């Protein structure tokens, strides 16, 4: 039966393992930088004192209204706050480096959610996407690459019964699909609402956005918004790209191009508008579409470094460097 075969393939062959590992590492980094960039203002923004932006008792009221939790509500002691903030930061660093596997990722998710709740006025679309995607990542094998694995983790995994371990692959594929669908939803919705806006229809939206001081790169932005052609091109291509992104992803041969366009688009958003966190979050999620390309890039990089080492060994005094070469097969093409 053809349908059953298809189901079995989807249930037994993990997709985009390399890409989703990249997503995890980059999202970890963006989370870490959220802590780092607010570090100097941490007690004013998130601390429990009365002279903070949102005093502790008002924060508790807000939390009650939204019906959620935050570890920063546990105590109004400044010491506990400092401990929690730094633990959260360490968890983010561990996720970036790939230490501790999915349990640490879950801890990081809880800490980051707590921080967002403590001061929701700082959030943007990137943080919104982050809080939705991290739980999806928990389903995936996002620690297979770009990670420092511990023997303890391997031993724990071996103890899990075989039937339960078998569920890992379909869960992984579902998690990757969920991230892909979420990305399509983000792009389509933001594209279709732009279609309805006057400034986007006129092709002048970029002119207006780039002049707003909060999103301006002084000295550079004016070269774009004072050039009619760039404004038209930028505005219309933004809308076209956003609306047609799902199609670009569904057609396999267009997929890397759609992802590359998205990365280019968000690099310019990060650069011109200063929305680094948002831009990198989107780019991180784009990586799930780029697994084969990432694998090829990694292999090329490995070959290059191997060749360089060989050359160094041949030109050097000893021949011992040859066996330091990394195994090329580690990057599986999936």
């Amino acid at each position: 039966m053809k349908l059953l075969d298809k189901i079995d393939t989807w249930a037994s062959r993990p997709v985009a393992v390399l890409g989703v590992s990249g997503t995890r590492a980059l999202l970890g980094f963006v989370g870490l930088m959220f802590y780092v960039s607010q570090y100097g203002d941490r007690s004013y923004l998130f601390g429990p004192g009365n002279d903070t932006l949102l005093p502790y008792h008002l924060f508790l009221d807000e939390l009650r209204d939204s019906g959620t939790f935050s570890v920063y509500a546990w105590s109004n002691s400044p010491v506990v706050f400092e401990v929690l903030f730094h633990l959260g930061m360490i968890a983010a660093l561990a996720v970036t480096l790939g230490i501790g596997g999915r349990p640490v990722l879950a801890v990081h998710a809880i800490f980051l959610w707590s921080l967002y709740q403590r001061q929701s006025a700082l959030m943007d679309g990137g943080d919104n996407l982050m809080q939705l995607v991290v739980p999806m990542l928990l389903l995936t094998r996002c620690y297979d690459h770009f990670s420092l694995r511990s023997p303890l983790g391997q031993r724990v995994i071996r103890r899990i019964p075989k039937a339960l371990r078998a569920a890992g692959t379909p869960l992984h594929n579902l998690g990757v699909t969920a991230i892909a669908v979420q990305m399509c939803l983000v792009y389509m919705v933001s594209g279709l609402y732009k279609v309805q806006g006057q400034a986007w229809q006129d092709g002048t939206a970029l002119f207006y956005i780039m002049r707003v001081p909060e999103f301006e790169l002084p000295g550079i932005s004016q070269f774009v918004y004072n050039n009619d052609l760039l404004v038209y091109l930028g505005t219309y291509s933004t809308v076209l790209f956003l609306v047609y992104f799902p199609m670009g992803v569904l057609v396999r041969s267009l997929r890397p191009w759609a992802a590359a366009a998205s990365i280019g688009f968000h690099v310019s958003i990060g650069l011109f508008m200063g929305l680094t966190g948002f831009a990198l979050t989107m780019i991180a999620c784009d990586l799930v579409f780029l697994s084969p390309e990432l694998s090829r890039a990694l292999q090329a990089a490995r070959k290059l470094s191997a060749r360089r080492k060989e050359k160094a060994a041949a030109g050097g005094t000893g021949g011992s460097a040859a066996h330091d070469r990394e195994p090329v097969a580690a990057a599986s093409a999936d």
Partner: protein
Amino acid sequence: MTATRRVQRAVLLVGAALLGAHFSIAAFSQTPLSPAKVQMAPLLDAYLQPYFSQNWMLFAPDPVMVDQGIIARGRCSDGEVTKYYDVTGPSIQRVQNDRLFPSRMSRVVSNGIQQYNSTDDLLRRLRDQKEKGKAKKPGKNPIPLLPYEKRTRNQAVNYLSRYALTQMDQACTGGRRLQAVQVRMYVHSLPPWSQRDNPHARDKVDAYEFPWKEAADLQ
């Protein structure tokens, strides 16, 4: 068929069904206002809030076109009223000076203003319709602010006032305390596209004064 295969098939199919349901609800929540959406709103909220809440109307349908911000003045403990301080400026400066993960302090003001102006989609549509009808039948009452809108606005003003208060703690010198603060919101419109090449085109500034807030009530 092995047990492994059975487990894999079951997990995949059940999971796919759950994901399908989840994304149907999430996508529906992002559609424009419609009778169906109004009817289903309690159901959507019950499922999506707070953990799956999302909003992807990024710079859409209308992008930010104006430079909004706040200035504020204070009243010291001896009754002297200070001059106005630029509250927004320094945080914008921080963003513009740092391209890599800039401080997000400027969001405090822009999100506060956004909260002040926020309303329900349905109310916005009704008010827009009334506004359009007004041209034909002048003198019709606009829809007043609902209690929850007044509460949100008051919260936003408190939030902005608290931020202003903490940013201008040097305003009262000589051992006096800053006792109260008043925020003024400005909306600075730059010349529109059609006037981009007109050297005589002028900016337009609208200002809205918020009530005085006692420092003691804000903390």
